[in-house]
């Protein structure tokens, strides 16, 4: 039986949502990197952060390439 080309990405999304992996696995590392990227790269202004301001690294890059 041939697998649909959507099977792999859908399975990856399902595995990220329904989390069954242990700590100190490569899946855990990928999740940690994704979280840190969101926390540090998202401009605080986009989230209307009450205690931080500025456009953050993504904003600097957008500004740089404009």
């Amino acid at each position, binding site marked *: 039986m041939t697998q649909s080309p959507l099977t792999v990405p859908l399975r990856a999304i399902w595995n990220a949502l*329904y*989390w*069954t992996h242990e700590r100190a696995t490569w899946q*855990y590392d990928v999740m940690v990197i994704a979280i840190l990227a*969101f*926390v540090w790269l998202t401009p605080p202004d986009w*989230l*209307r952060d*009450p*205690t931080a301001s500025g456009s953050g690294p993504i904003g600097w890059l957008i500004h740089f390439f404009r």
Partner: protein
Amino acid sequence: MTFTGLIGAICMFPLRAIIAVCVRFRIHPNVLTFIGVLINFAAAWALALGRFVLAGVVMVVANIFDFIDGKVARELEMESPFGGFWDSVMDRFSDISLFIGLIYLYSSLRRTDYVMIAALAMMFAILTSYTRARAESLVEKCKVGFMERPERIVLFMIGAFTNRMGAVLWVILILSILTVADRIYFTWRELNARNAKPRMA
């Protein structure tokens, strides 16, 4: 070795020395747990005042106590069912106090949106531990979902030290909702599978 595993191994070096000191002086693990909660209250106070770096430093100290209590109990052969119960109850005090600190801060800044985000994150953080505790009274183990207490604490520290508490609260909220949903689904599936077996036999 994964990079999170490596960070854990590096952090264990100073912690081993602290554990050895506590074992040498035979400090009762329940006392260590209680001291950790008291220090966490101080961290919550610093968060409420918007002094994030101070809060981060205090959280590091508080969580050293929180981390070593179980290890000291094992070394001193003082492990007990009450110790486990006391530890989980004190953990909830610590968790909730940090969220209350942030709720106080955002309400003093008149930011109702972040008061709600912090309150919802607190609700799902409590439900994360509740669903596991309740599930494990029905099924053997319920350890699914990403956002458990250690992840939450490290995120709080990252948010405090780098002044990205807004983003951290969003992450805690969304991943805690998913964790609660994972645990409900897992328990439902396990119980269904268990009920299906006798019928098939």
